[in-house]
């Protein structure tokens, strides 16, 4: 199963991707979390801590600096630019780098192309993409199983989310799941349903427990497993697992 997580910057993509990956791994699936952001932070949300998150960036930087060999295959990318996270999730940092070697599996192809090339079979890959609509355009022609569009109830975020959702539908990219983060009240719900009358969004309440976890550099799943926001995301992950077996 291939899951792409997209949306406007700051909407909660990384938090969403991290919870999805760990919950799917807990269900016994081989799970790969791909950090496709050129400013990679997924490690922190997965609970790997700052040190390991930074070390993964350093390995990537060493390739840019010519101090490390490039990886020769997609599998080697996952091995060399990755680390084992909790619950058996494998994290790999595959963000675009400066001065790519054309065609090189570790830097000369886009994260979207890498996602296309990965053969998952029984396993799951959760790809946390760069903010904005570029990813959805670049993924066109290589469908995934699920595209998670993450929004918050602000005017700008909903507009970007709407365009992303339309593009996903137009290009038949995959099953569309809308996650609305930081929902405060029924006015927020009304804002979301006004823009997405055609979809049934997963509503994630605005939750101080997430803010607190992020301030402390902890995975929300570890720091606040019983918070309303984490429970909503866990529910989404369990739903996906049932909907797309294998």
């Amino acid at each position, binding site marked *: 199963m291939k899951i792409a997580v997209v949306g406007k*910057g*700051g909407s909660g993509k*990384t938090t969403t991707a991290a919870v999805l990956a760990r919950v799917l791994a807990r269900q016994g699936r081989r799970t790969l979390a791909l950090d496709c*952001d*050129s*400013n990679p*932070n997924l490690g*922190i*949300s997965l609970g790997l801590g*700052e040190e390991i*998150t*930074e070390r993964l*960036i350093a390995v990537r930087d060493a390739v840019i600096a010519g101090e490390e060999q490039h990886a020769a295959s997609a599998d080697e990318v996952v091995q060399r630019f990755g680390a084992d996270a909790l619950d058996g999730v494998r994290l790999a940092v595959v963000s*675009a780098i*400066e*001065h*790519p070697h*054309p*065609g090189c599996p570790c830097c*000369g*192809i*886009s994260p979207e*192309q890498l996602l296309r090339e990965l053969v998952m079979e029984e396993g799951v890959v959760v790809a946390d993409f*760069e*903010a*904005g609509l*570029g990813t959805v*355009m*670049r993924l*066109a022609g290589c469908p995934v199983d699920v595209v998670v569009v993450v929004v918050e*109830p*602000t*005017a*700008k*975020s909903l507009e970007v989310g709407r365009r992303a959702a339309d593009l996903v539908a137009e290009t038949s990219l995959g099953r569309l799941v809308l996650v609305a983060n*930081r929902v*405060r009240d029924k*006015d*927020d719900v009304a*804002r979301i349903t006004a823009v997405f009358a055609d979809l049934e969004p997963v509503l994630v309440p605005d939750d101080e427990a997430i*803010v607190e976890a*992020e*301030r*402390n*550099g*902890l995975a929300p799943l570890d720091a606040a497993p019983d918070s309303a926001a984490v429970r909503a995301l866990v529910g989404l992950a369990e739903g996906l697992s049932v909907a797309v077996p294998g």
Partner: protein
Amino acid sequence: MCLGIPARVVEPVDTDQQTVLVDNRGHVQRVSAALLLTDSHTVPQPGDWVVVHLGFVLSRMDDAEARSVLASLDDLPAEGWSIVGDLPGGTKQPFMTWGRYAETFLVVVEPTAASILTGRRLARLTGMEGAPRVGLVVNRVREADDAERVAHRTGLPLLGSVPFDPAVATADRRGVAILDHDPTGPTPEAVSSLVESLRAEVESK
């Protein structure tokens, strides 16, 4: 502000992967040609100029036009004008295309682990060609020591801080500027004092 930047094609377009390698004044990057290839008559050749925006080739550009755009960027007025560029999130854009046009970088960090990590990466801007001024703005401050703590951990000089302000979330939900929504609230006040610090800093040089 998000503009396309002229760049020169280095290698023939990879029509299978729909990508092309381009050179933006020494910065070579692989970008998507997917938007361009919808019209097969416009496939650019090595040496041709194209307009690149956030990893995509938007269109072709002729030689004279490309040189003129690059010249205008060099000529952006610095005297008597304040030009504020809101760059995309993350660490890529300041170092790549926009770095050489800015005199001052305001690195906006919130007191979360991920944001501090990003701020630390952006602290390297100080070492860039032209030695731009780089200052820290700590946003969504909740605890008394948040600003100092972020300054210490990023190694950036603190220029200002903005408190956590629920009015910002309300303004964003309504799609209005915080300056119009709550003109005398804590955020406009904090940003005004940031502007004063910045002006003092610029004038002291």
